[in-house]
């Protein structure tokens, strides 16, 4: 089974995100990390490929930089990576991202595509569905459990009041929640091996995708934030202050 996992490199969320002054594009440093959201996809891909016998290929769009994020995913055990980096992709929106990913995925060939439900830096939350439409396959979204047998993929799809059991035939796209599996930590051997694994790079013209972007950010402002009130240290009696406030607000 050929599993393709969408894996995004993002600026380290531990340091504050900045925008370029005129374009309002996110500043992407040379060293980016694997989006935590995609560690779950990589783990799911590794487990499914191992069970069915198969390969895991990563596909990632964005500035390659030091490839730290890609190496992280390769170190977990993925077999190879396809990276699409092109100046025409700066400021890319969800649709252009999806077109690029879908073009790279269909060129590679696939039985199953795995993505996260939303990326940490952009969180448009629609890229996997777009990729599925462009590949003309079903999208099984928000999966908390995934099983494949006899060419059928069955997932538990998280819903507002529980979950649905959803089924389709492969090839398919599945988007996984952060609870779906416990991602492994790379071993020392994994980290060493990752350095030797193949990384293919593509440009937009290789893939025949035009760099069309249908939106433009005009301005950015800081969201209104509310002020902090009082902060007290619990001396064993702090609960009484809470009771007092609840009474004052007439909820008790």
């Amino acid at each position, binding site marked *: 089974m050929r599993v393709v996992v969408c894996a995004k490199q993002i600026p380290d969320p531990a340091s504050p995100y900045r925008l370029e002054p005129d374009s309002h594009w996110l500043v992407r440093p040379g060293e980016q990390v694997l989006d935590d959201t995609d560690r779950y996809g990589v783990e799911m891909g590794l487990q499914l490929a191992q069970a069915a016998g198969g390969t895991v290929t990563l596909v990632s769009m964005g500035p390659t930089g030091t490839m730290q994020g890609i190496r992280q995913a390769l170190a977990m055990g993925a077999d190879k990576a396809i990276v699409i980096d092109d100046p025409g992709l700066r400021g890319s929106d969800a649709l252009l991202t999806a077109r690029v990913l879908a073009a790279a995925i269909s060129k590679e060939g696939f039985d199953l595509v795995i993505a996260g439900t939303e990326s940490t830096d952009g*969180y448009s939350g629609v890229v996997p569905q777009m990729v599925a*439409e462009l590949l*003309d396959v079903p999208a099984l979204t928000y999966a908390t459990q995934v099983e494949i047998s006899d060419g059928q993929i069955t997932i538990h799809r998280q819903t507002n009041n529980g979950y*649905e059991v959803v089924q389709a035939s492969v090839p398919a796209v599945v988007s996984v929640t952060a609870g779906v599996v416990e991602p492994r930590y790379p071993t020392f051997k994994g980290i060493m091996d990752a350095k030797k694994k193949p990384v293919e790079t593509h440009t937009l013209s290789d893939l025949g995708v035009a760099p069309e972007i249908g*939106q433009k950010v*005009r301005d*950015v402002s800081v969201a209104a934030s509310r002020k902090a009130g009082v902060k007290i240290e619990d001396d064993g009696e702090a609960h009484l202050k*809470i009771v007092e406030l609840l009474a004052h*607000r007439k*909820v008790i």
Partner: protein
Amino acid sequence: MATVWVFAREVDGAPSTMSLELLTKARDLGQVSVVYVGAGSEKAFATIGQYGAGEVFHLDPGDRLVAAPVAHALAELVRARTPDLILFGQAYDDRDVAGRLAARLGATVISNAIGVSLEGGTATTSHEIFGGAQIAGATFTGAPPYLVLVRPKSFPASPSGGPAPQVSPQALAEVGPADGRIIEAHVEEREGPKLEDAAVIVSGGRGLGSAENYQLIEKLAKLLRAATGATRAIVDAGWVPYAKQVGQTGKTVKPEVYIAAGVSGAMQHLVGMKDAKTIIAINKDPDAPIFTIADLGVVGDVHKVLPKLIEALENR
């Protein structure tokens, strides 16, 4: 006059609350039609009429996986009727349909919008970035239709009064390999008030330490007739169902009082509850970000403060 469509997913036999918020907004932007996805009923359509839509396109996917058949039918409708703007909620089925429709039409989607306007035939939006810390103002640069995913509770829902709309049922064609089925739906039992509508909410985070300790949250909530909420961290850990998640990818709530216990206050959580009238936080870390927005912040251990609080309320 501009034509605005609102995507309305059926929830418990009625149009989703989200779609009523969108309808209220859409009335200010142009002539409104609704894309209604679900079994449908006279009552549901009457509600849509009361919120000002004149026309309903009714699509019923039954037990088929919603997105592909609905997006394909919608793409045909869009080509025939050329709406300027289509509003979706930032919700699961909405996202699935919007994504597929956008890819099919080659149309751009803007997500996480909290404001939208139409000027001179072009749509302008404001949308949240960086977990809601900043707001970006954006314009579509291509041709309509403009697809916008709007965050819940961005606009208040209020009926304008209106007659029953004209309903036109739309056939859903086969979609070949993109089809799928919903085999079963599991509904988790719900006790107490609904999170979205509750006046008081008690939420717990990883600071509770274990799934069992969530009963402290439930006990407190019962005493306050409150709904119970949670952070994504404890939903993903399997302590509580997703239905309880508050935040960017969960519910957006605006209660009178929000109590957060053992919640760090990540941007993605705050964005879902920062508009509560009063916020009370209990966290043992004095530098936890939740304290930057709490009206009353208690620096303390949830295992000490919550049991005492529960006892004090029981004795009242």
